[in-house]
Each structure stands twice: as structure tokens, then as C-alpha cells.
């Protein structure tokens, strides 16, 4: 297989640049000078355009096909958003420019802060954290400083359910907290008695997502908030599953003190092969003075001031003050992602509710289709998976357990996942949450049509009807066959060995 390092054009070949009109040959002393250039490829634009086009064709995106990856909200990314972020008013903007020069960007920041506060029932929002995990970290830092400001330094435990995303315990642990993991109840929901037993005067916070990673709404959430608050702890909402609830309920109503949003899930910042994301946080008033600094603010324009965006306000970066935790990203967050998310939300406006409705509709519809095959189809299926939870209704995602299938013919969740790749789908999230054995976690999102969901259910049934050996050796039609992950970890070839002539 060829790599970019196979391009070995003549010395000096590559991208053409103008010569500098300034000459300062001896500016950098000899002792500091690089002795030999890095072993980078030497390639022309046509060669590289083809190289990266071929690589893109060996990459599966939402644009390629249905991407039912649970907990990741792989919805369509509207293309106008990409056009907007190429405008010089965002692409060619420096975060340290004076507020007077970035009125439009500040107005968008302000509007996004307000919109996210409204949708979540929080009082203040910062857009600085650049990923969901960084949002968690930021919120836990604010909670930590809040406790310290009250002399509650002894609160050193953070409670997380065993179904939580791995980032929750990892983020709290980075702040120095000990993690108390509580087991889920038999229906997959939060175990209120276990929570009651876990809280105490050492509780700093509880981190939980609702709906849970099981796709279930935590019906006891208000009670959970009451228990944690009575113990003196703070409630933290992991916004990974926010796509399920906008306009229907919000973390404020559930009793949460802090929340992060994933602009790359709910608000369509493209996932880009793993990032960039954007993980703003919202907090209730008592935590707002600890937020990272600065946040976007505005006041009425004064006479003689430049016109700004023409709405009668002057926008500016407001310093959060002495109690602020400072910075978590060096500038003001992923502004490009904020602008994309702004363009996305503007498309729905007050009808964002429709988005969540259709996300939940598609999820329940697909779950029903998969679990209730027509009799003639059912007759051909070797063995059906079981529900990850037996609830009548799920929210935006659901889980299936392949355990029954594994028991009957040895086919694992991973085998099913790999076989689905042959049918032109991305696999569902595999083996998460860990409390469901042989778990497949499926989230269709609101941007898939009924026809796609019907076809996926039919193909899923077809997979379950196949000779088990076809599954255990899958995939068969992808650019490479099943990849040996153990080989990779054993040999650790983490870079190209280099070309001799370099």
C-alpha cells in the first residue's frame, strides 16, 4: 500500500511560494540552525489531490451511509455551515482583536450563550471548552472552586453511575476527585437506593446523563437531585444525550446545577474523524462567578460608537472576575464550531423541539422494526438479540444485547457489527454501556428517512439469518479485511520508517 512518503520528487519540488522581498541571511545563529530537513514527502498538487481523494474514499462518513453509532448523534451536517466558516469574518479573525473589530462574532457568541441557556434552563453559559470532555472538566473545576469558596474543601468524592461515559470519571479524576461508581437498577435506570447510600458530607458532585446511555429517561431524576443537594453536593448533567429532550424538558427543571453541551452532536458541528468538537457549559447563578473567562456580553450602544451589527448594542468580552477558574482553552473556544452550531440552530429556531421529536420517533420506530420482524423473516433468523432494557419506550437511542445469539451459535456483537459494514452501514456502538452484555447501541438521529430505517432493519435481519461463519469472518467487502488490533499493539509501528536518502 502506498503512502504519502512514496512521493519523492526532486529536491525543492512541492508547493510554490513567492520569494521573500527581505534578505537577512545571518539572522539565526549557527548553533540554533537545523542541520537537516525533516523527511517530508516531495509532491506536487495533482499528486496530493489524488492521494487524499483516494484516502477519503476509504473513509466512511455520514455522507457515505447510515451511521447508527449510539451516543454520538451522527446527524446530517448541513453544507451551508461549511460555506459560512470560510467567510473571512471568521476564518481570518484573531481572538485577540479588540472587541470593536469583532462585533459580529461577539453577537453570534452572545446569541449562542442565550440560546443554550434557554434550551437547558441554566443562567450563564461559556463557549470556551472545546470538547465534551473538556466541558465536563471545566464544570467540575467550577464546582470544585464553589465548594472551596464555602470552606467545603473536604468534599472529595464524585458519584457516577456505572453506565456513564468514560469521560465522566476521567474528567473528575483529573480534578483530583475520587470516583464512587454506583450500579444501575435491574431496569437499567439509576438505582435511587444506591445513590442514597453513596452520598454523604464528602460528596462534591454527581455526574449523570439523562436520558441515560441505555436510552432511557431517568424518571427519578428530580428525586436524585434532591438527594444529592441535601447532602451538599452539586448535580452535573452530561449533555451527550441532549438531542433527545430539547423543548420537552431541560436540566434546569431536573434540578441540575451545571451542564455541558456537545455542539458536535446536538448542533451538527461535523465530527471530522474524531474532532474538532465544542463543549460549552451552562451553570446556575451560584456557579457563574467561577466560569472560565471571558464570556461574551453586551450593553446598549452609546452615542458616537461604531454601529456594530446594527441592533443597538455594543458587544464585548466580559472578564468573569477574581473567582473565575481562568482558562481551559487558550483563546475563546472553537469559534468555528460555534458559528456552525449557530447556523444549525437558526435553521430550527423555536422549532428545535421538532428535531428532538423526530430523533425519538426514529429511535423507537427502528427499535420496533428490528425487534418485530414479519413472520416470514423471523422464520429465517437463527436467533434474535434481546433488548438491552425492557422499557416500552426509549428516547433517542436504544441498546440490544447479542448474548442470546452468542449462546446459540457463537456469533458476538463484534461479528454482527463487522458484518453490517459489508451491507454499507457504519456499525452501531459496540460493547457500551458495559452493563449490557454483548451490547450494540443504536442511535438513528432525526435526519434519517423511514426508508433508510426500514432497509436497515431488513438488513439487520438478513445478517441474523446468515451462516455464522460469514459473520465471524466479516467484513468481506471492505478495503481491508478484519484488522488485527493485537498485532498493532504488539509491534507498535507508529510512523513511517523513513526513506534512506533523507
Amino acid at each position, binding site marked *: 500500500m502506498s503512502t*504519502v*512518503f512514496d512521493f519523492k520528487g526532486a529536491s525543492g519540488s512541492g508547493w510554490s511560494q513567492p520569494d521573500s522581498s527581505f534578505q537577512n541571511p545571518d539572522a539565526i*545563529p549557527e548553533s*540554533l*540552525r*537545523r542541520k537537516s530537513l525533516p523527511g*517530508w514527502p516531495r509532491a506536487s498538487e495533482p499528486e496530493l489531490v489524488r492521494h487524499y*481523494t483516494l*484516502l477519503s474514499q*476509504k*473513509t*466512511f462518513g455520514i455522507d*457515505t451511509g447510515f*451511521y447508527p453509532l449510539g451516543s454520538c448523534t451522527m446527524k446530517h451536517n448541513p453544507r*451551508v455551515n461549511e*460555506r*459560512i466558516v470560510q467567510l473571512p*469574518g*471568521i476564518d481570518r479573525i*484573531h481572538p485577540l482583536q479588540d472587541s*470593536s473589530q469583532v462585533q*459580529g462574532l461577539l453577537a453570534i457568541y452572545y446569541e449562542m450563550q442565550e440560546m443554550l441557556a434557554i434550551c437547558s434552563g441554566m*443562567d450563564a453559559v461559556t463557549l470556551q471548552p472545546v*470538547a465534551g*470532555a473538556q466541558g465536563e*472538566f471545566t464544570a467540575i473545576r467550577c464546582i470544585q472552586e464553589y465548594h472551596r469558596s464555602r470552606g467545603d474543601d473536604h468534599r472529595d468524592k464524585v458519584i457516577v453511575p456505572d453506565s456513564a461515559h468514560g469521560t465522566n470519571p*476521567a*474528567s473528575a*479524576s*483529573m480534578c483530583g476527585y475520587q*470516583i464512587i461508581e454506583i450500579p444501575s437498577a435491574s431496569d437499567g435506570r439509576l438505582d435511587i437506593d444506591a445513590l442514597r447510600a453513596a452520598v454523604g458530607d464528602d460528596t462534591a458532585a454527581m455526574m449523570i446523563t439523562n436520558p441515560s446511555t441505555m436510552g432511557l*429517561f431517568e424518571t427519578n431524576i428530580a428525586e436524585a437531585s434532591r438527594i444529592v443537594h441535601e447532602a451538599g453536593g452539586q448535580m452535573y448533567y452530561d449533555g451527550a444525550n441532549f438531542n433527545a429532550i430539547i423543548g*420537552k424538558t431541560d436540566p434546569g*427543571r431536573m434540578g441540575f446545577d451545571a451542564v455541558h453541551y456537545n455542539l458536535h452532536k446536538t448542533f451538527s458541528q461535523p*465530527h*471530522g474523524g474524531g*474532532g*474538532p468538537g465544542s463543549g460549552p457549559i451552562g451553570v446556575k447563578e451560584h456557579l457563574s462567578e467561577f466560569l472560565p473567562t471571558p464570556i461574551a456580553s453586551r450593553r446598549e450602544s452609546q452615542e458616537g460608537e461604531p454601529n456594530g*451589527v446594527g441592533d443597538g448594542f455594543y458587544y464585548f468580552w*466580559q472578564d468573569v472576575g477574581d473567582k473565575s*477558574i481562568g482558562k481551559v*482553552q487558550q*483563546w*475563546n*473556544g472553537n469559534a468555528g464550531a460555534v458559528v456552525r452550531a449557530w447556523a444549525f440552530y437558526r*435553521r430550527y429556531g423555536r*422549532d428545535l423541539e*421538532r428535531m428532538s421529536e423526530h430523533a425519538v420517533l*426514529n429511535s423507537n420506530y427502528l427499535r420496533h422494526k428490528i425487534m418485530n420482524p414479519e413472520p416470514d423473516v423471523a422464520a429465517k433468523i437463527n436467533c434474535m438479540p434481546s433488548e438491552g432494557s425492557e422499557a416500552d419506550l426509549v428516547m433517542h437511542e436504544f441498546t440490544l444485547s447479542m448474548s442470546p445469539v452468542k449462546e446459540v451459535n457463537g456469533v458476538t456483537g463484534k461479528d454482527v457489527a463487522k458484518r453490517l459494514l459489508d451491507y454499507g452501514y*457504519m456499525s452501531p456502538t459496540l460493547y457500551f454501556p458495559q452493563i449490557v452484555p454483548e451490547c450494540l447501541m443504536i442511535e438513528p438521529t432525526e*435526519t434519517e428517512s*423511514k426508508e433508510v430505517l426500514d432497509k436497515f432493519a431488513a438488513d439487520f435481519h438478513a445478517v441474523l439469518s446468515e451462516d455464522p461463519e460469514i459473520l465471524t469472518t466479516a467484513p468481506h467487502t471492505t478495503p481491508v*479485511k*478484519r*484488522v488485527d488490533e493485537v498485532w498493532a499493539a504488539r509491534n*507498535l*509501528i*507508529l*510512523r*513511517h520508517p523513513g526513506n534512506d536518502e533523507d
Partner: protein
Amino acid sequence: MIEGAASRETIEFLLTCSGVTGEPMVDQIPNLGRESEMLSEIGLSSMSDLFSNIPEGVRREDSLPLPPPQSEEQILEDARRLLGANVDLDSRPSFLSAGLARNFVPTMVPMLATRGEFLTSYTPYQPEVSQGMLQAMWEFQTMVSELVGLPISNVSMYDASTAAAEAITCAVRVKSKKATNPNSVFVSGLVPPHRLSVIRNYTQGVGIELHILPHNDDGSLDMETVSSAAGSSAVYVEQPNSLGILDEGLIGLKEIIGDSTALIVGVDAVSLGLVQPPGHWGADIVVGEGQPFGIGPTGGGPIYGIFACTKEFLRLMPGRVVGQSIDTEGKTAYTLTLSTREQHIRRHRATSNICSNETLIALMGAMHMSLLGPEGLEKLATRISSSTYAVMEAVTNIPGVELVNPGGAFFREFAIRLPGPAKDALSSMDEAGVLGGFDLGNWWEDMSDCLLIGCDEGITEPDISSLVDALKAWSGGIK
């Protein structure tokens, strides 16, 4: 106290929003209008039935106080109007850098990186259908490794600051057994305050004590005090530092602190086309801002941080790593590896909480680096170096203006002392249509009469004349 949202009953920002009619989001939700058909199949009668698990006490009854939905045309119109109110860096002579570059990004880069397959893919957990992105990241790792002179690179951190912060926590995990002061870390006093703040946030919870290393008047690290860092877990310095100074003394730093202390160096990635990479003078971890390769300043993000290290740190480093492998037929393939360090497996014992990173921007970086090639990199660095010295020569000829740190070598940035507040100079130059740099008083109070001037490959003779004229007009006026 931050202004609360208590009064958010109606939205007051409607003036920024153009009017609308109809239901524009119909182009985004394919099943609009087919709800009853789908609901009846699952035995429900209304959309609200889907949400019956939400208890009454926490249910939202009213609708969201947000503006009406807009069509693509209207959104684009509003975006153009709002973002058009910003002053973009290319619209005037600009000398603002301070760690983020006004660069030229080759057209191929955004066009290819935003191909839908790259743009809309998730983390490549299924390697069989992600070979393209995985190979591109493996090539990225190789190019970063070559650039900084260390064998291992991950596939990106959020930015230079989180890369530096996580390098420090990583170094402490690795070195704490050998170090005599395992919780001590020494950081250059010229690390800019926003980065120091990120570092403090990331290190405070795990009990790391930060000590600040002083500098000499010429901006070089005070090597007399560096020996006090021996026995600590790590030393973090930057080359060039935040005042643009290339410090020859750093070349001998590793020898002073010894093997038991990790040397972490933050770099301006482009400078390494001219300047010796830290991996060649003993750095254990190299971090830095990757942004000059791949993407415009974008209001401060998304950008990406570089993270490279020696083998010693591999198993305790943060972030994703791609390794070469084989498939069941022995064919070369790529896959994520060493995942057992990561949060989705190791949970609270993970080496970092990082999950989403900056892969797409790193991909843009890989494309830009591939286009440049070795000689193109050297030329780009030379252009920036040349413009730095040309601008320096021109502005230091202005009466009353002097170089803050004379005698050293510089890359991209340098600081000048003015005959008055830098804040005033900047607003005066702004009126003359020149973005004259960065007021260092924002970082260090005792530098409020100092301006940090950033120079990039796009600076022209007329730009320099405009800067000099504007600065002269201001400094002449205050006498």
C-alpha cells in the same frame, strides 16, 4: 456576578435575525409529515406519547422563546451581515500574532479536507471502513515526528496550551518514581498567562506544584537558577518564547537538569524549518500550536496542538495513536492502538479525559505539510524570519521606540518599548487602518508600554511602511 438569564422570557436578539415565513427546516427532517404513519406502526397515537416517560414535574409545557426557523438563504444572509461586521486580518496591514498565525493556507487543504467522507466520519473505531483517515493520521504522526525530532506523535490535542498542560501531567506520571521532588514542575516565566492558567487548571487537582523560572533582561532563561529544577519531574520552556526570542542557552538545558527530569519544549511549528528541533537537543516531549499548518486563525479555534515524545512516555501519554497492522490476509492496514490508556476503557484511571480531539484540523495540517515538503518548509520559515527582521529594523528606527530584548535571535515575534501606553498606540494605529500588534500590558502589567509585533509570510514593504507611518504619527503626537 454574571448577568443571569432570569428574565429570558422573550429573546431580545431578534434584531440580528431577518424575517421568516413557512417551515424552513423541512429540508432537514425527512420524516416530517409521516409522523402518524410511523407512530401507528409502533402503537402510539401522538408525538407527545413518545415523551410520556418525562414526569410532569420536569416537563416543559411552553414552547422555546427562540426566533422562528430560517431557510438556508436567510441564514447565509445573516451570517454575511454579522461576520461582515468583523475586521478580518487580510483587510489591512496586520501585525497581530501572539501565538496564533495569520498564515496562507493552500486552497487544496480546505477543499480536500472537507470532502464529506473525512468531514462526516467519526473516530475510526471500525478500522476496516476507516483506512483512509487512519492512514492520513499515521502519516501526520510521521511528519510531526520528523519535524520535532522525536519518534512518537499522537493525532492531536486541543491546542498548544492543553498540549503543554497534559505534557506536564504525563511527565509527572512517568518521572515521579525517579525524581527527588516528584510533584515539582518548573515552568518558564515567559509562558503567557493564558497558557499558564490552562496549565494550573490541569495540574492543580493532582497535586503538582508549579515553580516559575526567571529570565535575564535579554529574555533568555536564567541558567543560574535552572539547576534548582534538577530533581523535579519536569521543566517546561518555549522556543521561541512568547516574546519571539530564540534562546541559545536552551540547547544545554537537558544536560543541566539530567535524565530524571523531563524536558518539555513548546515550539512554533513553522520555525523548525530553520531552527534545530528540540528532539535534537534533549527534549523528552515537544508540544506546540499546529495551526500555522492547515487552518486560518478562525477566531481562535478549531486549531490543534502537537504532542510528540520519546518511547519512555508512550504508554502514559494522552490522546489517540494510530499504528500499522495487518488484516486477516496479511495485508497492511492501520488501526487505533494503545487504547487501554484512554477514558472509554480505563475510565477514571485513564491517562487523560480527551475523547474528541482535533483530527480534521490535523488532517488539514498533514495536507499542508505534504504540500510544502522539506524545502517548502524551509522557505516558509525563511520568509517569516526575513520579514521579522525587516519589520524589526524598520520600527526600531523610529525615535523613542526600542527593542525590549536586544541582542538575541527572533522568530515571528518581537517586543518593542514605546514612549507611551501600548493601548493608546494600538487605537491610534487602528484609526489609521493598521492592526499594529498586541498590547503586552494585557499579559504583564509592567509591560503596558510594550507592543508585541507579529510578522508572517504575507507581510509586504507597503505593510511595513503603513506600520511605521502609523506608529510615527502616534509617537510624534505624544511628545
